[in-house]
């Protein structure tokens, strides 16, 4: 943003100070070549003053703009790596290996193997080490239970060591007919380790007692090279002259799935020269629980994408590439294609099977550690200059799914999405919101961005239809979250696969054991949740309890719905493994979400308090609100879905203050929001209805207000009814609607109270008698009757209370009014 701004600032300065600049220029031209000190100083001062004025003015306007639109992150980028990197440079190592099954970075030295856990990137644990005999190392992989360590020594020998007993053994192949390409451990029930050899694959199981491997099954075919990621549990074995024929297997804990043999296509070149597909050109990625393979066709400059189903491999299209070297990472289900030669990243969100990039290609950025924005930028500049030589350097290795390892420097980076940057550079609000709603890695951030985008498009008075579409996205996302909260991605995935063109095709098998585990876990936490609601409810006022019960019902239904969805998918077994394993975590989200919605009221109070602070001028507003939102959100949730509560408190309530003026636009927006919410069967905040009444009353649209109430567009509630009565001070019909609503809601006390206020004491009395309302003080009725100066009426009311209210006869009130009556008559 900053870079982009510079030329335009200069241009605008020159435009605004054109006359001063001309004057100064003329002065100089007249005197040159005689140069002296302070020549044309008067003209120069004028020019300088003008320029200063314009720049400060521009700065101010930019500041305002960036506050209203999106608080940009300084430089323009959408993917960054965060300083400081994770360092593991140990001298005298023989290279670094990555064990993706255990998320270990392994570094063998002369007699030992150092291993770093990088599962939690933030934590920097000292490496653990295993002693190992000296020798060449081709690859190292720990077994998934970490009991055995396997080291490939050469292309025909793999050495194993039991870490508990220290016993070692080796396994060799026949060197004359085959060689070992590699191996990996698996959690597949029938075997523990897979050897990939040029003659096929061996499925072996580890016998702990004998400390040896037993061959379970061998599959024979020619293999040139292979690709495996533990994340997808899938191995692709290349064969054929050009290495374009593939066999695929998935070794998941649900069993072994054999994919049909398939071909990857390559563009033919004119010459007879046969190009061979290389191992670095094929990538396996897991996105939204779906498994894809990406094949880089260097000659064709495309990245072909294949999606794997249980019984089919479907070519999904191709992405253009702009570099002879391409690397692929997946961050938070977003596909990043690094165009290494061009030093840019292109990002794709494949959720809706769209192959359009999310935004324009931009360079990968090295971002400084925290600190305020300006410092950060400066720091970055330094860093980049010191490191710039190596961004996309030759020695960069891209680790699955989202890590970059700089072999030369022993630095490990985690790739992050810069949601701010993406939001700032995208103009299509609807798809941007869709994109942000799908991001799970930093839900707070994406939620804040969504709220901010929402606010700004309304404040900018975008067309109602555009705002309505944007709200549809948010509401649909929340409703989806509520319905499938526990299995949010799995559900989405299922839906997607159902609507997929090849709907008969099912994705991969998944473990049912995991599923039941997480289900029982869910049930337990569901009970806990209920318990919590009940505990809370006991301590609360009655009405509040009602609200919460409702919520707890909602929550339990959502839990049950989630469980059903889960069991459904379990029996159907059509979701991928990766989504399943993430189930418990997702469920936590929904628990906190439910709790959060309960606490919404409390949050609302704090935010109201915030709002009443004096810093409510346009400029101060966001600064005042933002921390409040972050506090409120940060403490207790982990979803980017925006609930109706939040929609009210952080969008509409804030905007209402800001908009002022003619409220009809906001009313239209609110109606659209109600339509959205109604479509998804969501309840909106009652305060939203109250706000609508205020807006309509403010613009004197009472007849429409009446229609809104009669058609129940404004859902009946006590708040709404009381607001109607209040707004009805200017309009009798509206007040009547409010009273009627109170009566329909059986809020007898309030109804009688208001009737009395309006002087309808007889009707109030009649109503009180019929509905046994005894909470309204008799003196109010008597006072009202007295004010009519009609002794008969007063007598009647007095008699009424004497007859029907036990104990009234002995009260002082009776005496008093009796006396009054005597005086009157």
């Amino acid at each position: 943003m900053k870079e982009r701004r510079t030329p335009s600032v200069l241009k605008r300065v020159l435009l605004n100070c054109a006359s001063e600049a001309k004057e100064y220029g003329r002065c100089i031209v007249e005197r040159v070549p005689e140069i002296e000190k302070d020549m044309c100083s008067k003209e120069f001062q004028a020019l300088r003053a003008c320029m200063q004025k314009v720049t400060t003015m521009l700065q101010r306007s930019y500041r305002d703009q960036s506050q209203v639109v999106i608080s940009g992150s300084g430089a323009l980028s959408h993917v960054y790596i965060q300083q400081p990197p994770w360092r593991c440079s140990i001298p005298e190592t023989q290279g670094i290996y990555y064990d993706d099954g255990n998320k270990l970075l392994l570094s063998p030295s002369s007699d030992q193997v150092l291993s770093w856990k990088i599962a939690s990137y933030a934590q920097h644990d000292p490496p653990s080490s295993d002693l190992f005999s000296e020798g060449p190392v081709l690859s190292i992989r720990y077994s998934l239970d970490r009991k055995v360590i396997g080291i490939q020594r050469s292309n025909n020998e793999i050495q194993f060591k039991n870490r508990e007993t220290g016993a070692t053994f080796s396994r060799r192949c026949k060197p004359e007919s085959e060689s070992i390409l590699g191996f990996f451990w698996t959690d597949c029930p029938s075997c523990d380790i897979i050897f990939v050899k040029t003659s096929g694959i061996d499925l072996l199981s580890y016998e702990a007692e004998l400390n040896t491997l037993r061959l379970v099954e061998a599959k024979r075919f020619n293999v040139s090279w292979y690709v495996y990621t533990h994340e997808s549990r899938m191995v692709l074995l290349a064969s054929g002259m050009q290495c374009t024929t593939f066999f695929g297997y998935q070794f998941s804990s649900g069993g072994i799935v054999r994919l049909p043999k398939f071909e990857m296509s390559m563009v033919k070149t004119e010459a007879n020269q046969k190009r061979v597909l290389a191992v670095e050109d094929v990538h396996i990625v897991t996105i939204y629980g779906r498994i894809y393979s990406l094949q880089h066709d260097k000659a064709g400059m495309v990245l072909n994408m294949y999606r794997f189903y249980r019984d089919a491999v479907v070519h999904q299209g191709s992405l253009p590439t702009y570099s002879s070297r391409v690397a692929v990472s997946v961050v938070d289900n977003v596909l990043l294609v690094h165009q290494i030669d061009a030093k840019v990243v292109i990002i794709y969100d494949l959720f809706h099977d769209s192959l359009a990039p999310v935004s324009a290609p931009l360079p990968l950025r090295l971002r400084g550690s925290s600190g305020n924005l300006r410092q950060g930028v400066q720091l970055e500049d330094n860093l980049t200059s010191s490191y710039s030589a190596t961004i996309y350097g030759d020695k960069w290795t891209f680790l699955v799914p989202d890590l970059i390892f700089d072999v030369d420097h022993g630095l490990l980076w985690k790739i992050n999405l810069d949601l701010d940057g993406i939001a700032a550079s995208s103009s299509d609000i609807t798809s941007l919101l869709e994109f942000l709603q799908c991001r799970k890695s930093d839900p707070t951030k994406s939620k804040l961005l969504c709220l901010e985008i929402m606010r700004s498009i309304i404040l900018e008075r975008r067309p109602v239809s555009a705002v309505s579409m944007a709200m549809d996205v948010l509401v649909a996302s929340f409703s989806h979250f509520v319905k499938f909260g526990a299995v949010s991605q799995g559900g989405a995935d299922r839906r997607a696969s159902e609507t997929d063109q090849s709907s008969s095709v099912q994705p991969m098998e998944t473990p049912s054991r995991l599923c039941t585990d997480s289900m029982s876990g869910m049930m337990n936490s569901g009970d806990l949740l209920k318990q919590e609601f009940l505990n809370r409810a006991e301590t609360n006022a009655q009405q509040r309890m009602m609200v919460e019960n409702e919520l707890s019902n909602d929550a339990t239904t959502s839990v049950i719905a989630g469980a059903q969805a889960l069991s459904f998918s379990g029996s159907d077994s059509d979701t991928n493994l990766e989504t399943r394993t993430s189930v418990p975590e997702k469920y936590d989200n929904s628990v906190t979400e439910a709790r959060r919605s309960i606490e919404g009221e409390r949050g609302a109070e704090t935010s109201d308090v915030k709002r009443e602070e004096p810093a409510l001028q346009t400029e101060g507003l966001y600064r005042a609100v933002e921390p409040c939102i972050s506090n409120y959100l940060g403490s207790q949730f982990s979803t980017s879905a925006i609930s109706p509560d939040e929609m009210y408190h952080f969008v509409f309530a804030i905007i209402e203050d800001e908009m002022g003026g003619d409220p009809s636009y906001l009313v239209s927006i609110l109606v659209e929001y109600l339509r959205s919410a109604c479509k998804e069967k969501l309840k909106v905040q009652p305060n939203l209805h109250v706000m609508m009444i205020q807006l309509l009353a403010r613009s004197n649209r009472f007849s429409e207000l009446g229609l809104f109430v009669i058609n129940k567009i404004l859902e009946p509630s006590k708040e709404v009814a009381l607001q109607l009565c209040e707004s009805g001070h200017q309009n009798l019909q509206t007040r009547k609607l409010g009273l009627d609503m109170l009566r329909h809601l059986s809020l007898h006390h309030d109804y009688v109270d208001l009737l009395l206020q309006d002087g309808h004491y007889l009707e109030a009395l009649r109503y009180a008698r019929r509905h046994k309302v005894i909470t309204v003080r008799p003196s109010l009725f008597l006072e009202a009757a007295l004010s009519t100066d009609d002794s008969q009426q007063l007598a009647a009311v007095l008699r009424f209370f004497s007859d029907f209210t036990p104990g009234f006869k002995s009260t002082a009130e009776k005496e008093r009014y009796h006396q009054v009556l005597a005086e009157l008559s």
Partner: protein
Amino acid sequence: MCSFARNFKRSTPLFVMFLGSVRMLLDKQPSGELARTHLYFFVTDYLTDFKTGKRIQFPSFRECLREQGTVQMLTISRDMAIEIQSLVTLLGSLCGGITMCNSLILFEDLLVSTTLSPDDTANLSNYGVMRLTPHALSSTSSSWSYVRMSKSASNVSVVSGSPNAVLATSHGSWHTSRDTAPGEEPRIANVPRPLQRDKWTKGVDGFLLNDGWVTSSGPGNPAVWLQHTEERLYLCVYQYKSLTLILLIPLSSLVNGEQDIPLVKKQLLDNASQKIVNIEEKLSRGWGGENAYHVSGYRYLLVDGDRNVSRASPAAKVNTLSKDSLLALNKLREEVDIEKARSKLDNPEHEKDFEACIRARNNAWVIAKVSRGKELYMALEKASETLLYASDAMEKFSDR
């Protein structure tokens, strides 16, 4: 003739809406010629609705469960209402600029949505029912639905022959009167005749056109005045199947005056047609037809005076009541009207509440209840003996 006077009085707001007040016309031309011509055409056009043969037929006691001049509303579900409101927003934005333009939506003869004040709504929707709804467009006879209903009920016996024959003669007689009228009167061509029959036609694009509309400066677009607003508003009517949308476009919002109206129409077609189709489909699916608001066992009329809205038992059901009940009810209503007028004189601010249950000659209960601006009239023929029962039945009905 009392009913004639009352009926005639009811046409006044329509006159004012289309032609402006008589005072204004007199100001324009103090000789009164203009006002007289306007009135002449207007009244003759108005009366054609009540003509059967050579006679003018006015509502009789059989219409005692009707409240003329009020609007009947369509009851819709919440999501439907929101969807319609969304359409109203869209229509409102068509005028461009900051001001939202007003609109009124009818489904068949029933009001669905309005942004106008109750009085204007009543006037415009009554006009819509008379001349604009699909029914009004297709039928050559009167389109006051209740008049039509009663006519077919009462006239079949009076004029022997089928109702169609009656309608045909009415139609014919009108033609002669229209043809002769301009001949007799001094020819003033430039008089808009909003109530002239058969002038509205539906164009291929779905918009209704009035080819006979003339203003002082030649043919033009129909326009109206609303109460409390000084501005003239163009009437733009779009019809899709049973749904009639009346859009009021303020003169000031159009940069080039009437020439911009096609622009607004095009916008409406571009932006709103999908919504309109959806809404029409859902409304017709959900509508219960003529007898939708029948409550078995009751013959009722519910009037909300504040909003000019009424709801009543379907005419066919009312006609099953015996003459005695109807006469009694008629009488009761007269009494209530007198009482209402009196209390209004006494204390215009305070609304009087009262109720009456009367046993008619044929042992039916005739009930009136006025409470907080709402009036309920009903006839219970099958109610049993006691007053308590009748009053219970009324309570039960009121709580619905």
